[in-house]
């Protein structure tokens, strides 16, 4: 019997494959294509206290092996999410993680307070969005600032609290350690890398914000290294993210120390790619005689 379940911070995932925030909306569009109950979980599009329109100008730009995005946290706001999207999500029989962004500590705390009263399974605190000018990212760079944000949110938060780390952090291991010290129940990493592109014909940056966020298989080797380093340094469970395109990539992250994985940009290549990854992991476990993921977790 192959057991793909993962119990992470007291929440049971039926398999380790989670749709990453921002790649999967609130699941509605994908639910027209396959049954979301097959997924380990879904992390929602980043939610902010107030509704946001997101960034102007070009939002998506293809690079070799990935994409730069500058969505800028377009989202309908926490209240709308709770009343209009969450009821649908709750019914999908998969773990629902609310990804929460913000510009100020107060915003984060207010958003979390509202989510406390819902049926959401976990909260994923995005202290690392590179696409919001006013802030967000700033929290995720220095260990000290992160410590402050996470402790405040921890105090308010009644749900398991995952903190999502930025690969742009000055020192990802120290950042991870300070988030854990501040009370994070788990960590997810990585968010997108700060990158840019130039429109040489028009002699200007492609993005209005100049800097955008890089994701996709191009970042995988770096993300994997960060997951490996962080998993050796902290004791909380880790969700590995960054360029996972197939079951092999997922297994690499698990062997490097991840408990679950999140799949982002790959969803754009094929909308059912998460199902391929789940099947692939299962087959690999069968072939290799692996009974539970614990056997291979962090073997590197």
């Amino acid at each position, binding site marked *: 019997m192959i057991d793909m379940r993962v119990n992470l911070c007291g929440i049971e995932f039926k398999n380790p494959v989670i749709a990453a925030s*921002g*790649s*999967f*909306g609130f699941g*509605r*569009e*994908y639910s*027209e*294509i*396959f049954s979301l109950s097959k997924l380990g979980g879904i992390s929602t*599009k980043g939610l902010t206290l107030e509704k946001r*329109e*997101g960034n*102007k100008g*070009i*939002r*998506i*730009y*293809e*690079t*070799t*092996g*990935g*994409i730069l*995005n500058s*969505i800028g946290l*377009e989202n309908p706001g926490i209240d709308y999410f709770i009343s209009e999207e969450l009821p649908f999500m709750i019914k999908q029989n998969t773990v629902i993680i609310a990804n929460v962004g913000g510009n100020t500590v107060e915003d984060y705390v207010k958003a979390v307070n509202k989510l406390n009263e819902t049926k959401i399974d976990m909260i994923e605190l995005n202290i690392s969005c590179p696409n919001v000018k006013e802030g967000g990212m700033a929290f995720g760079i220095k260990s000290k600032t992160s410590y402050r944000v996470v402790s405040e949110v921890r105090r308010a938060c009644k749900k398991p609290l995952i903190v999502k780390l930025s690969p742009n952090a000055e020192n990802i291991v120290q950042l991870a350690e300070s988030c854990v010290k501040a009370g994070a129940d788990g960590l997810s990493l990585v968010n997108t890398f700060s990158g840019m592109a130039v429109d040489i014909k028009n002699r200007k940056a492609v993005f209005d914000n100049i800097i955008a966020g890089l994701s*996709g*298989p191009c970042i995988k080797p770096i993300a994997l290294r960060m997951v490996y380093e962080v998993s050796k340094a902290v004791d909380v469970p880790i969700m590995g993210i960054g360029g996972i*395109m197939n079951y092999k990539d997922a297994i690499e992250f698990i062997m490097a120390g991840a408990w679950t994985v999140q799949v982002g*940009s790959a*969803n*754009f*290549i*094929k*909308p*059912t790619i998460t199902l391929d990854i789940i099947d692939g992991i299962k087959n690999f476990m069968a072939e290799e005689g692996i009974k539970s993921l614990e056997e291979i977790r962090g073997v590197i």
Partner: protein
Amino acid sequence: MDKGYKKGTITSNIEIASNIYELKVASSFNSPFYGEAGQFYMLRAWNGLDPFLARPLSISNIMDGEITFLYQLRGRGTERISKLKSGDSLELMGPLGSSFNTNLRGNVALISGGIGIAPLVFLAKSLKANIDFYCGFKDEVYYIDKIRKYSRAVYISTESGSVGYRGLITEIFNPALYDIAFSCGPVGMMKRIVKMCKGKIPVYISMENRMACGIGACLGCSIKTSKGMKRVCKEGAVFLGEEVFYCD
């Protein structure tokens, strides 16, 4: 699995004018292509991840389960597609997005600029109204024969003057003659048409934007409209013109 991944087999892929290709794809197994005028498919016509994202192309025709695309060679993605030979296979996702309302009568104007003709051919075929087709080109014209089949009249303009009126198509289009208009082409052209029709007749346009998911999940293609943020791939690509060009 309506919007799931389909495999298709190329039946033909012909350069019908310089850098303009007509691609026909047969569906495999018993999952025929379908879709309505204005809808599009995302195409992956290459193995591996270079280019990384699929490319959106509007439906130009669907007949007996076979789909036709009309596309312009622009960059790496369309170049790859242009290299395909009949017998080659590719992956498609669709139909996606909103469609033109074809359930109407009266006098209808279709106004295309360049490759913007692609979705409008299918619209012309689908409409049961009186169609006047205005098509603007830079220099070379194409697909005129197909268009004549479905249209009461066809008006052509070229910037070079090689065929038809010399100048822009907007210079010969008169909204006063119509009950409704549909347009696809460069943003500048569509903006102009929306302005010309303002307060007179409704104009529906087909918008473009860079896409990642194509199904409404990533918000990469969102644009600001008078009714709030809208996704080109989901609420669009067909929009009421004045909702998109609502300033000035």
